[in-house]
Each structure stands twice: as C-alpha cells, then as structure tokens.
C-alpha cells in the first residue's frame, strides 16, 4: 500500500515568476515500510518537501496524501488526525530544556491524554529502545549532542506513528557518532518497520540506510534519480567498504555532480 503519495506538488516561496520555483513538479509514491532517503545538495528543496509531507508547510499546488488522505486540503482538525500517524525528527533536537529525557519523550503521549503511569511506562520503553535507559532523569543540557538526538527519535516514536520523517537528524554530530547513530537507527527500523523518509546530503548515509534513494537537483528542485539499494540487512559498517557499496555511492555521486549548481556544494 502507498503510505505517502506526493501528488504533483510545487512550492514557490518567491512570487516572482521570473525565478525558478523552490520545487518544480514532484511526483513520488512511497510504499508502506519503505526506508527512503532524499538525497541532494543544499538548496534543492529536500527539506521543504519533507516539511510539506509533515504538514509544516503548504504546497503552492498539488497535494500530499498520507494513507490515501490529503493533508494539504484537510481542515485543521482533520490534519491533526492524519498527522497523528506521522512522527517528525528535526535537524535540531527541539527538546524542552526544563524537562528530563523521560518527560520529553512523554510530550506527545501527554498531548494524547494518556494516563501518567502509562505515559511513564511507554516513555521508559522508548528510551530503552534508543539505548538511553540510564539517562531517564537527565536534563537535555546534561546530555551530549548524539544522546539528545536519540531522545528526539524516542519522542517521535513514542506514539507509534506509521511514518517517520527525519530531517538530517544527525547533521550536527561528528562523523563517528553519526556512524553509531546510523547503526542504531537501522536496528530500530528493523524492529519497528516504520515507513521512513530520511533527508540527508551525505551519499554515504543514504546508501547505508535506505532501501531506495531519491536524488534531487536544484533550481527548480526536482527528482533526478530514483535508485533501489538491495544490500541485505542488517548492514554493518564493514558493508560500506564492499565494491558494490562503493559502486552505488559512485553512481549517486555522478548524479549529484551532473546536477550541481556552482553556488551550491554537494558533500
């Protein structure tokens, strides 16, 4: 079944018709349980696309369907209901600084009116899932960058959404921690089988994590390639050294550089 259908959407921030829109026409169907990476240089609109799927931004034309229901056309109440099955992990952790890790994970449960004891139980379970049981009572400033981002993931998973949207969640952590977190994310995904849309500008990350890599180009933002990654799971860090992995990465890099615009850089 199609979990997310991006139905011919465009997005224009600048009303000047002489300029290219941020996103040209994008058509994309993402199946249930698929792990899709949106890969592209900065400025190609991949984050904007993700935000439109998550209902944080409205398309200029076209619509986004989640489990067959349009998010874009829905009323506020209906949109809230549809988005209840979507979890969002931001570039910044966005944890509330006065709340412990556990209480931060419990925010969406509190919003849903879950009883206190039940909330605590579920939140603790989620922290255990991301390997942070020992940090339940810690405040965000007492955690490292990687740990904060894991709390944010636990928060997005706490209400068991079918779809997880991730906007460069590990962009701010160092490369080694990022490898660890990617392994972790794969482990979580294999246990929970969510539909994941993961925005990144790292070819390495995209190939390591995804079943399918959608490559985007800039001005206007558009899909330039849609590639399946068939490497079996669980993938280890060693798997990123194999000739197949490197060949796939090289192919994607070629696509990126073909659509490279001089003022942007693709890493």
């Amino acid at each position, binding site marked *: 079944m199609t979990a997310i259908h991006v139905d011919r959407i465009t997005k224009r921030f600048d009303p000047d018709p002489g300029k290219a829109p941020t996103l040209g026409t994008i058509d994309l169907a993402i199946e249930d349980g698929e792990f899709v990476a949106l890969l592209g240089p900065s400025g190609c609109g991949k984050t904007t696309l993700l935000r439109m799927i998550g209902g944080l931004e409205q398309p200029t034309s076209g619509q986004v369907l989640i489990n067959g229901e349009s998010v874009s056309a829905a009323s506020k109440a209906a949109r809230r209901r549809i988005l209840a099955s979507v979890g969002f992990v*931001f570039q*910044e952790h966005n944890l509330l600084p*006065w709340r412990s890790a556990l209480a931060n994970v419990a925010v969406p449960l509190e919003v849903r009116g879950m009883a206190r004891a039940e909330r605590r139980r579920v939140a603790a379970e989620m922290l255990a899932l991301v390997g942070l049981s020992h940090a339940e009572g810690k405040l965000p400033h007492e955690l490292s960058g990687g740990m904060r981002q894991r709390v944010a993931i636990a928060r997005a998973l706490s209400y068991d959404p079918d779809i997880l949207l991730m906007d460069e969640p590990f962009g701010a952590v160092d490369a080694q921690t990022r490898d660890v977190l990617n392994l972790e994310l794969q482990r979580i995904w294999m246990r929970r089988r969510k539909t994941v849309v993961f925005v990144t500008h790292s070819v390495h990350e995209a190939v390591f994590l995804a079943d399918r890599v959608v490559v985007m180009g800039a001005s206007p933002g558009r899909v330039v390639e849609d590639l399946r990654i068939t490497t079996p799971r669980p993938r280890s860090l060693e798997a990123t050294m194999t000739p197949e992995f490197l060949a796939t990465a090289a192919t994607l890099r070629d696509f990126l550089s073909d659509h490279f615009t001089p003022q942007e850089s693709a890493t």
Partner: protein
Amino acid sequence: MSQNQVVAISDAESPVPAPAAGRRWRRALDRWMVWWTTPLVLVAIYFGWKLYLAITDLSPFVMPTPEAVLAALKEQVTDPYIWEVHVWATFTETLSGLAIAIAVGVTLGFLIGKSRILARILKPFVVATQVTPKVALAPLFVLWFGFGPGSKIALAAIVSFFPIMTNTAFGVQSLPRSTKEMCTSVGASGWYRFRKVDLPHTLAYILAGMEVAIVLATIGAIVGEYLGGDKGLGRYALNLQNNLQIDMLFGSIVLMAAFGLVLYGSVVALKRLLIPWHESVRALREEGA
C-alpha cells in the same frame, strides 16, 4: 581508523568533562575573592570617611562620624518598633505592589507577545505610562487611594510592572520557531502549548524582569511614603531629617539598602529554585557562586 578510536569517540559521548585542576583552583579563588575584598573596601571607606571629617571639620548635623552612625544603626536594629511598624509597612507595600505588577505585567506581556494587533494597540499606552514621571502621579494616587498603604502600593506597582511586561513579551516571542514546529508535529493544541511550553519558557524571562522590578517596587513604596502617611522606612527617614537626627538618618538609609538587598536576593534565590535548567542559573552554579 582503528577500532580503539571508535571506542574512544563513543566514550566522548559522555557529557561535560571535568575542568582541569588549575582552572578549578582559579575558580575557587574567584569565588572567595568577594569575601576578603568587601571587608577591605569597607575598611578603606571607614578611614576615608574619618580622614574627610578630620580635614573639613564638618558639623555632625551634616555628616556624623562612622561610629555615631554605627551606634544609631545598632539602636535601630534592636528597636522592635522599627521592625514591626516601619519595615513591615514598607515590606507589605512593596510585595503587594510587586504582586499587582506581576499580574498585570505578565498578562499584558503575553497579550503583546502573542498578538501583533494587540501589541500595536497597547504599546503607545504602555510607553506613555513609562515616559510619565511616576513621582508626578503620587499626589493623584494619594487623592485616589488615601494616605494609607493604597497609594504606596499603587506607586510601587506602576513603577515595577514595565520590566516584567517587556520581559514577558520578549520571552514569549523568543520561543524558537523549531520548538513551535515540534509542538505542531506532535499534535499539541494551542492550550497545551501555552501551559506546557510557552509558560515554562517565559518563566525565565519573567524572573529576569522581577529582578529589576523588585528594586523598582521598593523605590516606589519608599517614595510614596515620603509623600504622605505615617508608616514605612521612607516616612521614618523623613521624620529623622525633620528632627535633625542625622546619625539615625544615615542608619535608616543603611536599613533601606539592606532591605532592598534582601528582597533582591530572594528573587535571585527564587530563580535558582524555579528555573535550575536555565543557562543563566547553570552559569551561576558552575561558578559556585
């Protein structure tokens, strides 16, 4: 890249490394410095004062000796009447004024912070109350609220609500956009966001406003007392001046300063209690102050 390196990095995930021994030492020195510099400065003032009196030979009705002031202060501190009547009056007026200032300031601050239209409508009036010299309003307040505590409370409230209001408005507006989006993405209602996100976030700013406001409220109450009535530290100081008890007048000024200091200290303590997570409080804690 060796395996060891990877382990080392994931260890580095554990937060906040302990400061180096040398730095800790210096920090301890900084922390205790105030305990020996303050007495030193006080001693210097004492001798400067004595020296000045010796050179100029001023009348004790203009400038008493430090000994006379200390003696007067000792008498005042041990006099229960001063505490029960004057200090207590100023204390209740200041806190009542501050309470009104908090209620009005926080409400207006939230309205202005949340709604651009209300901000446009209210701003000119709020600014008008601030550019008006409040002391000029005092006779009016006496007329409206009488010579009792009412006029003092009104004056304390009107001089102290402004910093609370501006800080609250600033706090509401400074909630990061990304935090708002987090609220949207987890499906939080506006009411939930107000109670669980806006309020705790803004509390830090409200308390910062209160730090300034408590000092202003004290001044407001004391100025109010100068202008009428029969109680409070301001009234007491005025009486002493009229009686030419200048050593006692000096003592009463020291009392007022101590009064203000204690109230200010309570707000700072409140801040530590209510927002231990906030950057400003954490910095204080790390200094060990």
